[in-house]
């Protein structure tokens, strides 16, 4: 039992309320304190990334030991996959908080901003490390309620409208998830993910099982904005303040959506062919439709938000291909490759989409507009922003040697090896359209002639914003290393192992 695991929830939770008290009396406390606690969390998460490897740590909240191998307390679980996602959350969280130091000056009530930010991090960390399905729901609500408030932080017409849409659809998703949890508890009389798997292993009613799966898939799919459920995402992600957009797009939809879907469908439910076909189809649809919706946009943040849908489609599709191969029980090495591609792309997407939203924020900070047609020639005025956004654009479009190229390559190779030639072709075509769309972004924002001739007034953004953008663009380059053997085995393989072996997760947890 590792006593450090609950710190991921305790530190940001305590930090949020400390900011609320001390920030009232001490100016400037909130911004540095928020960055500090997120930096310490990032360090702890890196520590876990290096010690977890093949191990699996379980923490029993309140010290409630299992009776007759039946878990009775709330479990927190840290395995290879969790360690990766926790790392992403806290690293991007730290950089966004640091970026906010300058960016958020244009809003009032900074205390509330940082307190909600810390609460959101606490909720996401909780979702990821929790091994208990109701606990997942509780932490999910903590993080999404804070994000509702953060989306509406500007309290102007657009922000409020986006937040209302987000809340109605998010609320619907919550109730679907709650219903699903109720149905699971009804049949199994347990809430522990590992124990639910054990309870279903003695046979189950097929229709009932499918019904629960569909409920949970649609609930978490709404949170992850997979295509038929995507309506809230472009509004919410484009209306939020830019550091929050980076968090929402880069981290939140992964932590509370994709991560939970992968965790539940690999480690809690038995993998069935029908579900895997459904998940692959949804992923492919998001990938293709998202990019076509994105290409016509002129608002930078809206364009990026639609690309989030499309890039998440890659992740879901390749994980779905992996599921399909596992359910058939053939060619496990190809399944492992597909899942590796999915997780790798998930990590990469957090880095480059976070960076792109921070770039959009920097552009908005300097020029005051988000419309691509009203800007131009920024490459001279804002050289750092221009360079970092070029890195991120090339990453997302899959140009070597940036990280996006390697993850997309792995996904396409896996699809070809699994004989899904159509999916491989679609993935390549979507990547080309993404490139076109980002070339448009680069050209209109940075290289065109300025239509308004207001060059002199535009300056480069302050240091904290530059620092976050530069660090993220370096991360974008370094993440390519994950594709090489040696590093891949150390970081990606533990996550893939835990997903590949259907009974490993539950048997290890029940044994502790």
């Amino acid at each position, binding site marked *: *039992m590792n006593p450090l695991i609950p710190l991921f929830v305790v530190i940001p*939770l305590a930090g949020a309320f400390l900011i*609320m*008290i001390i920030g009232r009396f001490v100016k400037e406390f909130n911004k540095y304190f928020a960055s500090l606690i997120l930096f310490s969390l990032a360090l702890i998460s890196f520590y876990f990334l290096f010690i977890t490897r093949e191990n699996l740590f379980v923490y*029993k*909240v*309140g*010290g409630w030991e299992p009776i007759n191998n039946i878990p009775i307390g709330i479990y927190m679980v840290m395995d290879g996959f969790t360690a990766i996602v926790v790392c992403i959350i806290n690293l991007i969280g730290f950089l966004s908080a640091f970026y906010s130091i300058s960016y958020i000056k244009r809003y009032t009530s900074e205390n509330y901003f940082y307190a909600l930010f810390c609460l959101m991090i606490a909720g996401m960390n909780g979702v990821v490390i929790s091994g208990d399905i109701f606990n997942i729901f509780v932490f999910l609500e903590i993080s999404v309620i804070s994000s509702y408030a953060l989306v509406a932080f500007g309290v102007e017409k657009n922000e409020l409208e986006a937040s209302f849409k987000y809340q109605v659809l998010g609320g619907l998703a919550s109730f679907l998830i709650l219903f699903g949890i109720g149905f699971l508890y009804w049949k199994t009389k347990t809430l522990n993910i590992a124990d639910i798997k054990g309870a279903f292993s003695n046979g189950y009613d097929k229709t009932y099982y499918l019904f629960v799966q569909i409920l949970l898939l649609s609930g978490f799919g709404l949170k992850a904005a997979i295509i038929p459920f995507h309506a809230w995402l472009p509004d919410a992600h484009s209306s939020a303040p830019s550091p929050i957009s980076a968090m929402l797009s880069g981290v939140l939809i992964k932590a509370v959506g994709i991560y939970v879907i992968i965790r539940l469908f690999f480690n809690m439910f038995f993998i069935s062919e029908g579900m895997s076909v459904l998940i692959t189809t949804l992923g492919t649809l998001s990938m293709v439709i998202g990019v076509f919706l994105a290409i016509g946009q002129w608002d930078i943040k809206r364009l990026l938000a639609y690309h989030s849908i499309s890039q998440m489609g890659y992740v879901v599709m390749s994980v779905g291909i992996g599921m399909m191969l596992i359910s058939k029980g053939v060619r496990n090495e190809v399944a492992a490759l597909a899942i590796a591609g999915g997780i790798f792309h998930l990590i990469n997407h957090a880095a480059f989409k976070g960076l792109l939203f921070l770039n959009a924020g920097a552009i908005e900070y300097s020029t005051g507009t988000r419309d691509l047609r009203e800007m131009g020639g920024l490459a001279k005025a804002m050289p750092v922003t221009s360079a970092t956004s070029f890195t991120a654009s090339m990453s997302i479009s899959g140009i070597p040697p940036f990280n996006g190229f390697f993850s997309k390559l792995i996904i396409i190779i896996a699809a070809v090896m699994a004989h899904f030639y159509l999916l491989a072709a679609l993935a390549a075509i979507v990547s080309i359209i993404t490139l076109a769309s980002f070339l448009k972004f680069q050209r209109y924002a940075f290289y065109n002639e300025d239509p308004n001739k207001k060059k002199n007034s535009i300056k480069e953004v302050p240091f904290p914003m530059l620092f976050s953008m530069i660090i993220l663009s370096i991360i974008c380059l370094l993440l390519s290393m994950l594709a090489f053997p040696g590093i891949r085995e150390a970081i990606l393989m533990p996550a893939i192992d835990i997903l590949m072996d259907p009974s490993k997760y539950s048997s290890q947890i029940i044994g502790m």
Partner: protein
Amino acid sequence: MKGMTLIVKKTTQLIAGMIFMYGIYVIVHGHLTPGGGFAGGVIIAGSLILVTLAYGGEFLKLVKEEAGTTIIESMATIMIIMIATAGFLFGTKIFFNNFLPKGVVGQLVSAGVLPLYNIFVGTEVAASIFIIFLSLIIFKEESPQ
């Protein structure tokens, strides 16, 4: 916000205190009877809301009250986290560890740290529901007619 009529004010005077006391009763008996922190906190918040509605208050006074309640709420949460951390530090390295002696089942002072949690959860819930009420009223007050 304007107050209500004399009848309402007088009745409020009579019953608000009792409602408040009942809330405290529910909170401190949380480990023995149904109820506990959340239910008792809601009852206490009800009595506070009743007083505010009956007597009304100036806009600035409401804003001030909200600031104070926010601090109380944050304090209560931090206290809960500190008790949990105390369990971590005394012995077993487990958050939310019940480190106090358990006592006899059925007595008021028993069950280790549970009554403490109940008290702080009650404070937290009462304060946060009252904050929600106050913020909605402040919204209404500051809107242009």
